[in-house]
């Protein structure tokens, strides 16, 4: 371990609490709350990080202190009454058992939530200005509202303390109520809570003072805040330094947890949860600037995905605790692996943002590449050895096949993996070709390295067929042959190119291109950027309301920004009806999905994306000979139970991932893990 990595493992003491190392996970709302309480799933998820060696884990991102900041729309935690305390105690015990510290984030979302959910109470804020992200227009808070919310914060702090937490932070970041008061873009008040920066800080001062009074002198209270709101009307970097310095000077906070940007609208949101389009640690400079000026420890998260960067941030004194939040979603065992000298075994977050994007559709946070995260009750992060070693053949080296091979090899089985291409990775290799999405290749790179290390017999450049598979005399065959691009069924489908082909073969299409996207996924958007970068005039037509509509909150804005920059024209609400050749050009016939009026485009190329169709020849050929006839027992799969037909003579056959039906990377990896963990 290098000297700077060592810096990660120096303990940190704040207000009598000693945290064993400098690795943490900042609060996030994974959508695991049930009935406003952090129950077993939520607790196990954090206990796993504690087991994995993290120093401090903060849960309950945006936990509500008041009823007019509802917890339900996020499946989050409500700290608005005492019924949550027993859950906290159980939670704290689970995490403390593994030596980590546990804290919670308390907040009032102000205008950054919706009124039409749990309690149907109006949203409130410093001033009645619309929030673009939640599209809500709040009521301006009266003095009574202010006093009530201050009291609610204090009560919540007391509950956190009684619940055995090691501390808490308030969220004054991401455009929550406290920073709604701070930000000149939201606070237009003329009373003592508006105007000068000092006045705008008054509400926060009152909140923190009340929390301290309620929670006592030996309870850690910190604050999450922005280091620069990064837009003209917002708080500047200097404002934020002043805010941090003022709060620490007054002794109101024991730490500040600094992030960059805010989250008032889609693009800002994408910036505050920087995905793979951003450099590593893009906002460390903001935390560093604040750390230069304050005397309390500084925490920071934002795309610190590798331990070398993390170690450097601590060793060079930019921060005191380095949060690797999504990094721990991708691998909760970072600390332990580092201590054991297994840095190469860390599954590094690629910054796909799948986790965060899901919660904005009301779903639960899941990692694109680690299917065990958030499923600790049924899925193992550390794969145990099987009682008996088997011979297993995996066909296809995409993410599904690689994960299957990895899990089987960890189980101690003898694994043979066939891959038709000369490189492992499947469609991810295509996806990664598209400009800023290169980091997706980190997924198969880690899997391939693990699989090699575990001694899987990899046959590259071999297209398997039934005979080749059976020659291995397998006990189990896993078919993960993935999908092939679907050119569509409209007349003229033979004249079009697919996005896969463009990206895969690097076809340089110049002139004008009509790109028809029936998926709303990354594929077409990436392809549009790819073509436009190379000088093509691209129009992206889609039946959806917007391009890349299926792509989540932190990714879609990046596609849109790029497409705007590159002059890609997006036309929504169109179906493709037919394609035909005219002279040496193509004519695409499109129909408006609203008024059914048809229109045409004369272009040089038509590129389409209808997703993929399963590649299932190997599966079909092997099906009849298999003891389970290729059937996967869905009930057992979902429950995380072993499949039937255990121990019968002959081979069992399963198919996973896009070979079953075109879906996505997580589906392929989850299919593999839940199936193979019991082999």
């Amino acid at each position: 371990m290098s000297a700077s990595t060592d810096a990660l493992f120096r303990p940190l003491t704040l207000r009598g609490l000693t945290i064993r190392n400098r690795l943490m996970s900042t609060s996030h709302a994974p959508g695991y709350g049930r009935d406003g309480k952090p129950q077993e799933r939520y607790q196990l998820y954090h206990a796993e990080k504690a087991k994995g060696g993290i120093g401090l884990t903060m849960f309950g991102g945006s936990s509500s202190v008041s009823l007019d900041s509802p917890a339900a729309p996020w499946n989050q935690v409500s700290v608005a009454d005492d019924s949550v305390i027993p859950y906290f105690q159980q939670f704290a015990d689970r995490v403390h058992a593994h030596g980590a510290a546990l804290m919670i984030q308390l907040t009032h979302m102000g205008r950054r939530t919706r009124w039409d959910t749990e309690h149907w109470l109006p949203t409130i804020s410093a001033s009645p200005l619309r929030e673009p992200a939640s599209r809500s227009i709040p009521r301006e808070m009266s003095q009574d509202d202010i006093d009530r919310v201050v009291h609610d914060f204090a009560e919540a702090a007391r509950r956190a303390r009684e619940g055995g937490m090691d501390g808490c932070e308030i969220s004054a970041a991401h455009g929550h109520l406290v920073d709604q008061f701070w930000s000149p873009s939201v606070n237009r008040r003329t009373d003592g809570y508006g105007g000068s920066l000092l006045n705008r800080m008054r509400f926060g001062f009152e909140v923190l003072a009340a929390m301290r009074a309620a929670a006592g002198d030996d309870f850690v209270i910190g604050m999450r805040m922005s280091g620069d709101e990064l837009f003209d009307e917002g708080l500047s970097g200097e404002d934020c330094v002043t805010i941090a310095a003022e709060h620490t000077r007054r002794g109101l906070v024991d730490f500040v947890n600094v992030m960059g940007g805010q989250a008032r609208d889609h693009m800002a949101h994408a910036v505050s949860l920087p995905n793979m389009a951003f450099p590593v640690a893009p906002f460390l400079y903001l935390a560093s600037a604040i750390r230069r000026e304050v005397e309390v420890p500084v925490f920071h998260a934002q795309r610190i995905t590798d331990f070398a960067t993390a170690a450097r941030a601590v060793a060079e004194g930019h921060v005191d605790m380095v949060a690797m939040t999504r990094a721990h979603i991708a691998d909760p065992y970072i600390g332990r692996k580092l201590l054991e000298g297994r840095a190469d075994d860390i599954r590094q977050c690629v910054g796909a943002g799948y986790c965060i994007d899901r919660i904005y559709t009301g779903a639960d946070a899941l990692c694109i590449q680690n299917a065990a995260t958030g499923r600790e009750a049924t899925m193992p992060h550390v794969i145990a050895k099987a009682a008996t070693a088997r011979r297993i053949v995996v066909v296809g080296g995409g993410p599904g096949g690689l994960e299957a091979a990895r899990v089987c090899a960890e189980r101690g089985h003898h694994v043979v993996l066939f891959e038709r291409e000369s490189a492992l990775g499947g469609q991810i290799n295509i996806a990664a070709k598209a400009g800023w999405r290169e980091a997706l290749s980190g997924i198969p790179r880690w899997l391939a390295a693990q699989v090699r290390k575990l001694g899987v017999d990899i046959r590259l450049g071999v297209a398997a067929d039934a005979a080749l598979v059976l020659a291995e005399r397998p006990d189990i065959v896993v078919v993960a042959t993935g999908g092939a691009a679907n050119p569509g069924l409209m007349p003229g489908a033979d004249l079009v190119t697919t996005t896969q082909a463009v990206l895969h073969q690097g076809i340089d299409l110049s002139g004008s291109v009509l790109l028809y996207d029936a998926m709303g996924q990354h594929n077409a958007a990436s392809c549009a950027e790819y073509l436009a970068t190379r000088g093509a005039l691209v129009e992206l037509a889609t039946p959806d309301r917007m391009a890349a509509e299926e792509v989540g909150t932190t990714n879609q804005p990046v596609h849109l920004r790029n497409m705007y920059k590159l002059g890609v024209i997006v036309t929504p609400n169109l179906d493709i009806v037919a394609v035909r050749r005219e002279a040496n050009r193509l004519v695409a016939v499109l129909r408006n999905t609203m008024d059914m009026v048809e229109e045409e485009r004369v272009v040089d190329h038509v590129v389409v994306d209808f997703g993929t169709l399963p590649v299932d020849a190997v599966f079909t050929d092997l099906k009849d000979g298999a003891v389970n006839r290729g059937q996967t027992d869905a009930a057992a799969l979902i429950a995380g139970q072993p499949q039937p037909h255990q121990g019968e003579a002959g081979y069992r056959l399963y198919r996973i991932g896009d070979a079953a039906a075109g879906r996505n990377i997580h589906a392929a990896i989850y299919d593999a893990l839940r199936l193979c963990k019991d082999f």
Partner: protein
Amino acid sequence: MAFGALVLLAWLLLAGVAVQVGRLGLRWRRGAGASVDWLGGLRALPRRYLVDVHAVVARKPASSVMHQAIAGGLLAATGLLLLAAIPALFAAALYWLLIALAFAVALVGAVLVRRRRVPVKPASLSAGAFLTLPAYLGAYAAGGLIATLLPGVPGLLGVALAAFGGIGLVAQITGGPMRHAVAGALHLAAHPRPARFAGGAASDLVPLDLDAARLGVGTIGDFAWNRLLGFDACIQCGRCEEACPAFAAGQPLNPKALIQDFCAANRKGGTAYAGSPHPGIASPGPVLGVLHAETLWSCTTCRACVAACPMMIEHVDAVIDIRRNLTLEHGAAPGKADAVLAALRYAGNTGGLAPAQRLDFAAGLKLRVLAPGEAVDTLLWLGDGAFDRRYGATLRALIGIMRAAKLDFAVLGPAERDCGDLARRLGDEAGFAAQATVNVAMLGTMSFTRIVTADPHALHVLRQEYPAFGGHYTVVHHTALIDELITTNRITLGPATDTVITYHDPCYLGRYNGETAAPRRVLARLTGQAVEMARAREASFCCGGGGGAPVTDIPGKQRIPDLRMEQARETGASLVAVACPGCTAMLEGVIGPRPLVRDIAELVHEALQ
């Protein structure tokens, strides 16, 4: 006639021996003074020879038979002959028959001696004078036998043959193999570590007078005279060479050659050494006029040579004596030694880290830190390994075990300083004395019934070497503590697994302190599949981490830990159990696929119920 001549020969040979011993004595007198309990030593001599020496010799049964035959036969025959001065005996036929028998045994012995090197000489044995030795032995024994059995001229010819052999042997007393017989006997009587024979560990280094005119051994005459005597006792049996890890790794150290270098340094122009040299070294070096400094710095102070030596020679003491001179007088410790010793001098730990960092590994564990004036039952000595993240895991496991057993224990925290082991083995006696003095004074302000440590080096220093600085403690190794906790049912473990585990004995625990049973008992409780490496217990093979070897870092052909790991692999074990921070670091440093390395404390902690 022949009988008379034979008796005369015996007396003449005795006289010859006396003269030779006198010459040797002059050589030994060159050494520095040493106080020796001659009376006690001589009284204990037979027991030391017959019990202690033979216990070592008997580890190789063939050698033992050989030596019993040749030494027993020769000594018996010659001794009996000398008794012929008693007329009644001279006339007794049975007496002569007895002598004949003794000569016959000796003759068999002589054949066995020859057979050791013929047809192929094992690498660890010397050639040179050793090749002529069987001839002299044979001549003396055969001649004696002939003279006792055959009358007349043949008998006289036998006497002549015996005279040829006998004179050859006596001549070899100063320069050849026979020196060991004389020097060996005297060495056993005047041994510098008499405590070794009482079954005691006696592996502590003796403090140096730091005000002395010369510090350590800078010339051959700086060795105490009985050390010089001890070197001359070497029979070049090569057992130390076979035992030595540095030699095995191709580092420039051969303990056998080392002892012979000392002999040579004390006797200009003697018969040349004809055994294997220090690997990679062709010519004599500047140290004592014979040695290269790398030879001295290659030693891991593992004591394997000492434990293997039938002549009870103390290689390690000699190595350290010279290192003391090199370090204290010349600041010549190589590699990172100067930086490490400075770190120790100025920060109190070998990493040069802030003293408060010693407890970093235990952040959040809320350990009790013993303050001056306080009392506790068990004091946990953390050692410098506490600064190391890897070893921190071992310590955390140990603390978990001690907590599970509800022991009353505390640590010293920032007040603890390195015990000084590294400084002492690197020859920095001044640095060691400084650490010892501070630690003993600090420990004196607190009260506890015992010290527990997971570091065998600290254990050795605290237990055996601090008494000379006024610190007397009961020191327990963590494996012994765990053993005790299991047998007294203070902790309960889950069922034994079937993981194949082999245990690597740390030199400073096994050889230096004789503790090899407790860790094995614990291991047997953990797995049903404990296997032993070929070299285990007192004969264990060093991990390469002792004696400052990782700091001086003298290159060889291979690395010692790689060799040890290979030995572990040969057992088929999937896990090597260790019990020392040094061993953990060295064995885990072995790259490529290999068994896992886990401290016994970690294994027990995992198995706790």
